[in-house]
């Protein structure tokens, strides 16, 4: 499997207490691909992402990343292995400056090459001494992705990357995601179908905790015809 898929999820089930949210989900992420999961509110997209990133312990099933079983591993170990999760709430450390936020990530990963961050997000260089609390939603998203790409991760899991962002920033993100996917796989979840159509090479449609369709046809992805599955 190691060469074909960087992440292999098999029969994953997750729950919050007694409330089961994810039902027997199986999926694969290939190296350097752009994959999206789409679905309505409450479909279980975020829960699935959290289960893969070990932020939530699945009730059963397995998540294998680069040949290593992730279920039961703490989230900080998973992050160190190169599977990074970016939350949807655009939360950066508010009392720290952009520089300090990046330093934290560099210290954890040993990667101090900030040029690659500034290559994708030149604006962060201008904002380097501004505190997280004074960044806009778009700037926070840049910083969160910038932090995540330090340490050369193999997979980025990004929850609702366009939520609350201005259209011009969404356009920038499309370009950025295409650039980033030259080095790592990107899996996003969200409801912004026009964004998904512009970035995804493959799509899973999710409904009521189950994957109901896999769309690989480029034409179908471009014309949003997968929306019938939602």
């Amino acid at each position, binding site marked *: 499997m190691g060469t074909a898929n960087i992440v292999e999820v098999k029969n994953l089930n997750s729950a919050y207490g007694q409330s089961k949210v994810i039902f027997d989900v199986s999926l694969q992420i290939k190296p350097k691909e752009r994959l999206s999961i789409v679905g309505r509110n409450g479909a279980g997209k975020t829960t699935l992402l959290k289960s893969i*990133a070990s*932020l939530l312990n699945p009730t059963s099933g397995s998540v294998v990343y680069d040949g290593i079983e992730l279920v039961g591993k*703490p*989230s*900080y*170990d998973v*992050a*160190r292995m190169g599977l*990074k*999760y*970016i*939350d949807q709430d655009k*939360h950066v*450390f*508010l*009392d*720290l400056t952009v520089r*300090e936020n990046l*330093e*934290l*990530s560099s*210290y*954890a*990963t040993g990667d101090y090459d900030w040029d690659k961050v500034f290559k994708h997000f030149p*604006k962060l260089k*201008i*904002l380097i001494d*501004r505190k997280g609390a004074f960044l*806009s*939603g*778009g*700037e926070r998203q840049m910083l969160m992705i910038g*932090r995540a790409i330090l*340490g050369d991760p193999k997979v980025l899991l990004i929850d609702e990357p366009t939520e609350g*962002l*201005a259209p*011009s*920033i969404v356009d920038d993100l499309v370009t950025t995601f295409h650039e980033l996917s030259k080095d790592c796989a990107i899996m996003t979840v969200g409801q912004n179908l026009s964004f998904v159509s512009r970035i995804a090479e493959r799509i899973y449609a999710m409904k009521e905790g189950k994957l109901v369709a896999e769309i690989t046809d480029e034409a179908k992805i471009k014309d949003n015809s997968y929306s019938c599955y939602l």
Partner: protein
Amino acid sequence: MKRYLNSWSTIIIVFTLLYFLKAFLPAAFLTEVAIYSIYAMGCSFLIGRLGLTSFGQPAFLAFGAYGAGIYLYYFGTNPFVAILVGVLASVVVNMLVGLFFVRLNSSYFTLCNQAFCVVTFFLFQKALVKWTFGDNGLLLISRMDPTPVIDLTSPKGIYLFAFIVAALVWFFYNYLMKRSVFGATCLCVKDNEQKLRFLGYKTYNIKWLAFVIANTTAGLAGALYTVYFCMVNANIASVSSASEAVAISMLGGAGTLFGPLVGTFIFIGLKDIASQFIRHWEVLVGLLLIVVMLAGQKGIVGSLEGYLAKYTAKKSEPTPALTQEGGV
């Protein structure tokens, strides 16, 4: 670099000024301020930087104090060694207790620390009474030998030493809070612990180390307290004084560098001066605390820093990032 030098020089200026305040204020009061501010610093760090409020600080003060006291009573006569023993005793206890307590969050952490304080008080008052003499305590006045360079058995010596130690503690915390990655991670634990894990940090280790550092600072204050007062009894661990360190931290500004010093100065000042005129001087502290909290919940230093930041921001030129690029 300029900022770096400024913060070091500010600490030196503040403590030098405080030291020479003895021309106007009693040396005993200022010594107590120096020692108690060290005690408050640990608590302030826990609250302001980690978001952990502890009502068990007297226990951590007591382990340092008894470490020094037991050494002087049973084993030796050198007060410097006694302080070292007090700190070591404190480190060992904090390392063990921290293993369990930092697993707890918010209210549970607060209450467990308070319970630990009750247990510690019982330990020194009753369980170990054969060695600690309970409420009577260990009297050490004739058990300390004069020391070279700085004589800790003389009021002048302990006054100077307390200020040197306090300044060193401030240097250390200045580095910890403003210059180190560890200090930044502590702040992030308070802000959003889960997000820090996403970056690959094991937050349990961060909290444990911060707990040990903060409470060892309290232990250091306890050891100094024993040498200064030449005695230690079980009341040092009394749960009735558990809120003092928290009140001082909140009053001065939890998590700020000089908050514990300002808070201690006001607290000890009210205790020493107002208690001569008002029987229940704690009422004044309570009222002051309410006013300061209502004014912005940042304490005196925290609020002043906020005003100062606004003032300097108004005076300085807007950055290109703000004017040209704008917010996204």
